């Protein structure tokens, strides 16, 4: 009798989404490894362009209405080649939040990649991120520009993990060097923030000098649209506002350099 009941319960649970197993169950149907698929699109469909236009959004958390408005605003434009989300796609890392965020971001018409933010680590969030999006450190090359996306959420590991991953950075400095001339670095938490491993802030900066023609860095986390020079040198760090602020950033790359713009939506 009890075995039958158990079997019945399990059968019911497996056949529908109406049953909530647990907020941290990491049980996803639908699209997975999204970054990998999207990078394939970015690298193969966009190709070499004289003018490349990239939009950056960040910290969408659970401001779904604002995020949808942002996606709609991006979709209205026809001049954007791809979108980068700088992390914190959830607020508490639950599987449900990952699903809702995936549904909204999936409406972005152009290819998009998503970094991991510190909030996306909560509970089993980091595992969910890896299932849905993939590796936490990744890179891609488009129009001879390499975009290096780094996991900088060291506090989430109590500073015992290789975050930021210098080995990864070292590899990216030379990997496919014939295919790119310039570099852009993207991260969630910027140096000297409560998530960065601040013991290596200066070492991190030294490593950045080895990236071929590093133009600038982009970060999220602080929920503020900002331009910062964390190292008091000529390397700009562009902060991308949270969804709540209803702002995104646009970078337009030409052969000579780049232009940046903040857009309200």
């Amino acid at each position, binding site marked *: 009798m*009890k075995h039958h*009941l*158990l079997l019945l*319960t*399990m059968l*019911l*649970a497996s056949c529908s989404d*109406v*049953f*909530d*197993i*647990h*907020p*941290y*169950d*990491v*049980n*996803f149907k639908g699209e997975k490894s999204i970054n990998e698929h999207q990078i394939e699109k970015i690298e193969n469909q966009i190709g070499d362009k004289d003018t490349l236009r990239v939009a950056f959004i960040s910290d969408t*958390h*659970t*401001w*779904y*209405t604002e995020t949808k408005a942002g996606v709609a605003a991006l979709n209205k434009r026809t001049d954007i080649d791809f979108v980068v989300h700088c992390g914190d796609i959830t*607020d*508490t*890392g*639950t599987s*449900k*939040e990952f699903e*809702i965020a995936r549904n909204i971001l999936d409406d972005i018409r152009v290819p998009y990649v998503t970094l991991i933010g510190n909030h996306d680590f*909560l*509970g*089993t969030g980091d*595992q*969910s991120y890896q*299932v849905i999006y993939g590796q936490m450190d990744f890179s891609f090359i488009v129009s001879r520009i390499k975009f290096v996306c780094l996991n900088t959420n060291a*506090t989430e590991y*109590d*500073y015992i993990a290789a975050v930021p991953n210098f080995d990864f950075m070292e590899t990216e400095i030379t990997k496919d060097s014939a295919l790119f001339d310039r570099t852009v670095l993207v991260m969630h938490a910027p140096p000297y923030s*409560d998530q960065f491993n601040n013991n290596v802030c200066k070492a991190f900066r030294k490593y950045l000098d080895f990236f071929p023609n590093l133009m600038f860095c982009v970060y999220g986390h602080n929920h503020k649209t900002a331009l910062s020079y964390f190292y008091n040198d000529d390397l700009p760090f562009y902060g991308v506002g949270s969804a709540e602020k209803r702002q995104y950033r646009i970078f337009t790359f030409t052969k000579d350099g780049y232009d940046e713009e903040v857009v309200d939506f």
Partner: protein
Amino acid sequence: MKKLLIFSVFLLSSVIGIADSIYTSEPEFSAYDKRIHRYRKHWAALIPTQFVIQNAGNMGLVSVGSGWNYGKRNQWETQFLIGFVPKHQSTRPKITTTLKENYIPWSYDIKPGVSIEPLTTSLYLNAIYGHEFWKKQPSRYPEGYYFMSTTFRFNVAVGQRITVQIPQKYRRYNKSVSFFYELSTCDLYIRNKVIDHNVKLSDIIGLSLGIKLQTL
């Protein structure tokens, strides 16, 4: 009340004792006897009166547990459940425990041996175990960095039941069986809805089906 009863028995026996000396040695309850009686009664109250099995409800794929009912109409229930969360795409399967309090305000007999409970309300605290979760925010974070615990989840649920009395001749271990469903959500999901009103209720409310076997 009980003291009065014992006293009247004592009084009665002494009255009878006067009338007929044969009954004067009627046994009295000694202090020891009374103490043992109370002792057994109190420990007996700890014997679970019910067995529960239910799925989902943010407690796991399936949860099993025991419970106690109390109150004038047995309208209160306290249950302790152990749940199982399968591995799915995570690194390992997980165990949860739940302390669940149910309040069932009404019960109506719809025909002999069958009753319905048109409303059940529940409040429960679930804990999930493993190194991924913390009961309170670890010291590596600035104070108040995250507002929540990742181990503990508060849940609320409403549901309905149908209870069938098991006829005497078929009774083995249980006297009645209840079939129930619950609609539940947890603190984090309610928070999602509060932050963004456009979050659909269907996105944050889940269904749970279960069976309760009433032993005592």
